[in-house]
């Protein structure tokens, strides 16, 4: 129970942060022609920021189901990697149904907090961690959908930046203290910019809502950093095997 409360406390700031972002989603969805109930259900059943924004654009445009599946897959495939990472941080005898419940809320922010835990992540802790963000994400969407049209247009237009600035707030602090995380973040951002601006390769950011560009940038940057660490381990091993102490 203690772990659950600790999870709630840790997750609550995410819940607060989700409200302006999901509010924006609600606003946009209604503007596109979804009704507030549909917008709210999409949020509750997806818990995926970028994937949802892309999804409603496709549904509104009358895209075929296969395009919807592939785009959703590409944009959300990072959750696959996060889920795989999390599978290494739970007890190996944790039953399937508990894993299946945890899987529902592997979001960027919830995962980032779980990944920063020093010890294994317990089911009650993760349950607490995901409880308020789910509530906040759903509530914010509902509020945004209902309030659509009441807000001054200038303010509506500025809400789009909230999501990205939450991402910034997640990646900057660890990048400040860890040099390799900083390298990872910078390399990934640079690659993503290349895919957007350099002629010839910029088709990647134009198709599928930019999903491919994100995946390739992230995988390459993470692979570079993991390889740097591997190289350092290799050198260290060689130094100790040689019996030379530097």
């Amino acid at each position, binding site marked *: 129970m203690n772990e659950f409360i600790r999870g709630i406390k840790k997750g609550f700031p995410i819940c607060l942060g989700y409200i302006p972002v999901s509010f924006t989603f609600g606003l946009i969805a209604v503007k596109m022609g979804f009704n507030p109930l549909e917008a709210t259900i999409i949020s509750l059943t997806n818990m995926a920021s970028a994937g949802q924004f892309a999804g409603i654009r496709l549904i509104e445009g009358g895209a075929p189901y296969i395009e919807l599946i592939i785009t959703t897959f590409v944009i*959300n495939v990072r959750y696959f990697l996060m889920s795989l990472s999390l599978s290494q941080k739970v007890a190996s005898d944790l039953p399937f149904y508990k894993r299946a419940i945890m899987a529902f809320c592997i979001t960027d922010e919830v995962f980032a907090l779980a990944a920063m835990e020093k010890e294994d992540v317990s089911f009650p802790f993760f349950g607490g961690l995901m409880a308020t963000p789910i509530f906040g994400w759903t509530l914010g969407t509902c509020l945004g959908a209902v309030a659509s049209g009441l807000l001054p*247009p200038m303010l509506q237009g500025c809400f789009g*930046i909230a999501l990205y600035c939450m991402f910034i707030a997640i990646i900057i602090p660890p990048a400040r203290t860890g040099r390799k995380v900083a390298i990872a973040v910078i390399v*990934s*951002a640079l690659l*993503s910019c290349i895919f957007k601006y350099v002629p010839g390769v910029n088709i990647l950011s134009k198709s599928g809502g930019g999903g491919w560009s994100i995946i390739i940038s992230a995988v390459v940057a993470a692979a570079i950093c993991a390889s740097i660490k591997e190289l350092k381990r290799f050198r260290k091993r060689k130094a100790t095997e040689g019996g030379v102490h530097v």
Partner: protein
Amino acid sequence: MCSFENIAIAMLIMALTTYLIRVIPIGFVRRKLENLWIKDFLYYIPFCVLSAMTFPDVLYSTTPSGATEPHFVSAAIATMAAIVLAWKNRGLVRVALVAVLVALIVELLLPIVF
């Protein structure tokens, strides 16, 4: 806009696709990974994904209605504010809300200055 039935099916497809991506790894991988390279790779992935999603798209994220193009200036200034606040370890909510506020102020001031 398609009929209600189509929207319902599309919503179901979206939710299922998203959930399957999430449940397969954690549901079925029980072995602890031994390979240190893969472990490091998985450690860096979330930071990299968020970074690639944010840059450069954040610069195109403010589009006041009425405008046809995103407003680069307000987004750039708000992004800088967000980076400074994040550097000072302010929480998620404060960083996000201050950025929205900064973007709004810039949007209100720009027509006056120019």
